[in-house]
């Protein structure tokens, strides 16, 4: 991880005209919320995700991650590798619990 020094903001938060635009579709998180989270000290993709839930919805950030990252990196003046990625986790698609529970059966080859 890149070294990031965090201290309290000295300037008040500056709203922007498109702050109400949705960025994370699943969890309905806006650009303004993301900017405010960064202002409040959330300084990595994961921290913003954990604070706001953007990237924690059904699609697991597959749609919005890049857009969230570009907002964070622009606000902080950091590069995307510096703010990190959401970790790829199993299951990569939603799986019904009963199916998960049923993990001993054969997978049938296509007919």
């Amino acid at each position, binding site marked *: 991880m890149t070294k990031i020094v965090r201290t309290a903001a000295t300037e008040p938060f500056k709203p922007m005209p498109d702050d109400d635009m*949705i960025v994370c579709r*699943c969890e*309905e998180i806006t650009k303004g919320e993301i900017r405010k989270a960064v202002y409040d000290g959330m300084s990595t993709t994961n921290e913003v995700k954990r604070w706001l839930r953007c990237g924690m*919805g059904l699609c697991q950030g*597959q*749609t919005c991650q890049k857009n969230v990252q570009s907002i964070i990196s622009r606000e902080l003046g950091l590069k995307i590798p510096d703010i990190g990625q959401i970790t790829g986790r199993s299951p990569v698609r*939603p799986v019904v619990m009963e199916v998960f529970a049923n993990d001993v059966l054969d997978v049938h080859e296509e007919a």
Partner: protein
Amino acid sequence: MRIAQHPILGTYEKGQKVHFTLDGQDMVGYEGESIAAALHAAGVMTHRYTAKQHKPRGIFCAIGRCTDCVMIVDGQPNVRTCITELKEGMNIQTQYGVETKEAWEAKNK
């Protein structure tokens, strides 16, 4: 609108005509096509209303990734309609948050 004849693909292989319901209304589509495609062909754009802002959502990625097109299918919420095949007799409901319209309205009265 369905494409009757395509300059490269010709005609599309479609299965049997099937009947299903959307919020109780009778609809028709073809076996094997996705629920989302059948609804789109019938001019249905809104698949659900979101939980927080109550905004309409429909097809977005159409390949099972974005999960925007989810609906309640045979009682199951959050079913990705773009990759779920249409079947005879399916009961499809517009999803409100993660519930039916009735449950949503009862809760938000």
